[in-house]
């Protein structure tokens, strides 16, 4: 089903409801392969929900998310219609996608190295030696070469988030989801993590969807900015366009509040 042409990610009239509360309202947007997209918008506008749907941590209420031409969380029934996928297929879908969380969510019972090797070994079936040597390379990349045997609790927030980034990269995701990954960090640790992410954006072909309030970072790294409000895309465009010359009043208000 790999098509290569067409968008890598396509939200097709995606609806997400919690009870009566409509969080995403027939949302449509696309992301090209290799693109770095920043999602901005006021708190509660549905940004986290979008990433969680893509990570299959939540189920869509309606509509379809397409990844690389295949439905992410649906399977085709015999009559050609789409029905919700089972856990096994969801696990397959997830392999292409990695996520870094605001609160890091490292496994506190494992040392740093095992945090990174766990999934390559138990999901990809990589042998332990290879997984470990790759983990060391990744720790080197994120600037934590000496910390293989540390426990997460012995690391600063910034270091923990670097490990979480290395852990996500170890699965060689095609798509990396970043949900306000610096908002739980002490201010002096933010720049280092953002620099690391810029490096990764420049030096890899990983497609990134990034929720952030760091507008300079968004300007540096992304080719496209999507402005959300109330579960819909208010406007989208290059960072230059959105930040310097927004079309919509709602965007102007939002930017005035955060910049």
């Amino acid at each position, binding site marked *: 089903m790999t098509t290569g042409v067409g968008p890598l990610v396509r939200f097709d009239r995606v609806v997400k409801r919690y009870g009566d509360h409509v969080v995403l309202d027939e949302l449509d947007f696309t992301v090209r392969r290799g693109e770095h997209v920043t999602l901005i918008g006021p708190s509660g506008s549905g940004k986290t929900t979008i990433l969680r749907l893509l*990570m*299959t*941590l939540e189920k869509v209420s309606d509509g379809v998310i397409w990844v690389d031409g295949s439905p992410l969380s649906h399977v085709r029934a015999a009559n050609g219609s789409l029905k919700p996928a089972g*856990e096994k297929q969801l*696990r397959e879908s*997830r*392999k292409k*996608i*990695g*996520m870094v*969380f605001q*609160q890091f*969510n*490292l*496994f*506190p*019972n*494992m040392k740093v190295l095992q945090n990174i090797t*766990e*999934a390559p070994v*138990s*999901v990809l079936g990589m042998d332990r030696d290879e997984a470990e040597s790759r983990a060391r390379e990744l720790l080197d990349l994120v600037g934590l070469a000496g910390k293989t045997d540390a426990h997460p609790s012995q690391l600063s927030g910034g270091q923990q988030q670097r490990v979480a980034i290395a*852990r*996500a990269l170890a*699965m060689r995701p095609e798509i990396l989801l970043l949900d306000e990954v610096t908002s739980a960090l002490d201010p002096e640790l933010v720049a280092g993590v953002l620099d690391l992410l810029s490096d990764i954006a420049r030096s890899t072909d990983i497609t990134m969807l990034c929720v952030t309030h760091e507008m300079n970072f968004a300007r540096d790294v992304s080719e496209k900015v999507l402005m959300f409000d109330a579960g819909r895309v208010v406007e989208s465009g290059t960072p230059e366009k959105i930040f310097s010359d927004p079309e919509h009043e709602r965007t102007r208000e939002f930017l005035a509040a955060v910049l």
Partner: protein
Amino acid sequence: MNGFDWNAAGDALPLLLEGFRVTLLATVLGTLVAAVLGLAVAVAGRAPSRLVTLPVRAVTEFVRSTPLLVQLVGAAAVFSSVEPLTVGVVVLGVHYAAYTSEVYRAGIDGVPRGQWEAARALSLPARRTWQAVILPQAVRNVLPALGNYAVSMFKETPFLAVITVQEMVFEARRYGAEHFAYTEAFTLAGLVFLVASYPTSLLMRKLEKRLGH
């Protein structure tokens, strides 16, 4: 009553210690059964299918709402050809599993949601998520509570005397009857329990501290 007979006490001691070995053995094996079975029950209680969760809940509810003594006597009657100690250990283990499963359940609930989500985001299979991520954290959180149940079980082992397991209180009663020295035999048995329990609870408190509770 003509005072405490120290000679009788000294006389009874070797017999009681013999019984104490059985007491300890029953406690250790019973705790093992309770620890393993309780964990299995807690995990099964989270199964997606009601075909699993409903029977598991019914059985634990039954075990919890009937007295240990009744369970012991009932099991001994049903399994009359099985060695009493074996029956005793299994009944103790099953009885306590109904409680330790609750402890584990709380421990599992105490693992932050972000841990499940991180495991899912890495596509870890369910089995690995439990083994490598959830249970190590849950068990660590509940070790002190499990230890407390082990101590309770220890103090309930005298019930095993009812189904003729020759643990310490069984021996104390026998000695008391043969030598008309109940007071001495039971006082001594009580002391042995005290001497064994006290360091154990100190140890438990140390463990709790180390785990940061």
